[in-house]
């Protein structure tokens, strides 16, 4: 049903604004695999958003080349190009004078889809983002909560089933609880649709939670490290990356390791139980909260101690050498 993602290749991309000495983005090269969710993470003003916006040419690069699925985007008509790239921004930018259905139908309408095909697609997408079409299709954006609006923003970007999505801090303006919920839903959605996604954020936790790979960006969008979340946490490339990770890297890494990856001790009937598909972080949390010596993994295959968790973390520290 859904069109799978395609690769994106940025090569020596530079953006120099007229009248400025320093480039906003300098010699940026990066290759994104089809279906991959790549996070651009960096401090405000580092050029991560500028870099992303050059992919759909909201900002025109000064030099360098960008290809999507091998096709040079700079040779395409920018409007036509943008109709095939999903675009979600932090402020959402829903059209306040259009209903939710009309908002989602924007790109299909631009592409000249039939009314029936468009309507079916709108219903399908509303259900995908867990909004009941019967309730929401004919409402106006201001009648929706922030979280609901953001879901509509994602649905609207997905409307014409683009292989590539650009997301600029899409969950940045929502409260922490809504954000976590949206992130979880988004991960589930991405598991289904497998788009190639560039996701810009300044929140490293979010990058770790969502990304297949993370590009940690420094000034002028320089790539300080580009790797999987686990590798970046275990082996930060330099001080800049370490400082960006901040404190608690160990805990963040624990959150990335599922219990099923760890060797277990014999079960102990008196110990508190933790869900088998949760992470080591959840297991540690339970250990701390209960003060118990070990926690049982529900399903009864075994139990976990502090020592086991700590060993798993150290084993993961050098994953390259280990494999």
């Amino acid at each position, binding site marked *: 049903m859904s069109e799978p993602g395609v690769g994106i290749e940025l090569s020596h991309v530079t953006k120099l604004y007229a009248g400025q000495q320093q480039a906003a983005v300098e010699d940026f090269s990066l290759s994104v695999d089809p279906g991959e969710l790549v996070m651009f993470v960096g401090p405000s003003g580092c050029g991560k958003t500028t870099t992303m916006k050059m992919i*759909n040419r*909201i900002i025109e690069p000064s030099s360098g080349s960008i290809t999507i699925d091998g096709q040079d985007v700079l040779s395409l008509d920018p*409007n*036509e*190009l*943008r*109709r*095939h790239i999903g*675009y979600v*921004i*932090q*402020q*959402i*930018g*829903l*059209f*306040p*004078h*259009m*209903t939710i259905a009309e908002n989602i139908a*924007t*790109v299909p309408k*631009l592409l000249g889809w039939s009314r029936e095909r468009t309507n079916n697609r709108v219903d399908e997408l509303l259900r995908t983002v867990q909004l009941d079409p019967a309730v929401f299709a004919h409402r*106006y*954006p*201001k009648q929706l909560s922030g979280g609901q609006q953001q879901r509509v923003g994602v649905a*609207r*970007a997905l409307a014409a089933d683009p292989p590539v999505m*650009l997301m600029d801090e899409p969950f940045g303006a929502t409260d922490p609880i809504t954000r976590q919920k949206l992130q979880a839903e988004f991960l589930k959605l991405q598991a289904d649709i497998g788009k190639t996604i560039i996701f810009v954020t300044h929140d490293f936790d979010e990058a770790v939670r969502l990304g297949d790979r993370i590009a940690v960006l420094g000034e002028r969008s320089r790539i300080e490290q580009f790797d999987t979340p686990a590798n970046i946490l275990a082996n930060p490339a330099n001080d800049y990356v370490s400082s960006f990770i901040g404190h608690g890297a160990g805990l963040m890494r624990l959150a990335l390791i599922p219990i099923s990856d760890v060797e277990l001790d014999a079960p102990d009937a008196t110990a508190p139980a933790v869900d088998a598909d949760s992470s080591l972080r959840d297991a540690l949390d339970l250990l701390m909260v209960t003060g118990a010596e070990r926690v049982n993994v529900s399903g009864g295959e075994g139990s976990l101690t502090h020592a086991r968790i700590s060993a798993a973390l150290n084993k993961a520290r050098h994953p390259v050498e280990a494999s």
Partner: protein
Amino acid sequence: MTALTEQRARLGLKRFGTPFAVVVVLAVLFLWLGSLTLDSIEERTLNTSYLVERTQEHLILTVASSALVALLAIPAGIAAYRVRSKAVRAFVIGLGNIGQATPAVGVVILLAIVWQTGFFTALISLVAYCFLPVLRNTLTGLEQVDQATREAARGMGMTPRQVLWRIELPLASPVILAGLRTALVFSVGVATIATFINAGGLGDMIVNGLKLQRYPVIVVGAVLVAAIAVLIDWAAGLVEDLVRPRGL
């Protein structure tokens, strides 16, 4: 439920309160007029056919000038907005400012001297006078469209023209219409000076009444102008409510 009925009651008051008040004022005016003994000068003015003709002239002048202003100032505002040049913007606004700052009487009389007297001269000075509010509202209306909304539209592949027609103009329409409404009400008042260049209108009554010291004539002329202004403002308000995009 009570909130809804309350809202409806308020809407009803808004819809029908104004015309009702105008009707009452006019009724009182004509009752008072009926109680007076008019002399021959007053009778020449205070009769149905004279009143209807002056009112017609006044309305035609007002509506025609506002329509022209809409036709000229809205596209000019759009053009000034799309050029996105500070110089052009300053020039257009400046031009509108001059039009509005110059006393309308001055413009009318100067134009009459260098060109001709009559309807068209009055029309042109009215257009010059009402150009600015519509132009400025068009410009501000378009400029106040949320940057994120505009960027989302562009990011989805709308051409600049599609962004203008589908997003910017609908969202700016309440502000543009408010400008038109101001222009309409302005022109009702300013149209009274058309009398100085023989272009008719209710100004005839006010000026004649003053010159001949016939107070009933002045009062009727003045009250009619005020009534028209209030009614036109009311009608424009209704139109605004009707065409305002839903969801705003």
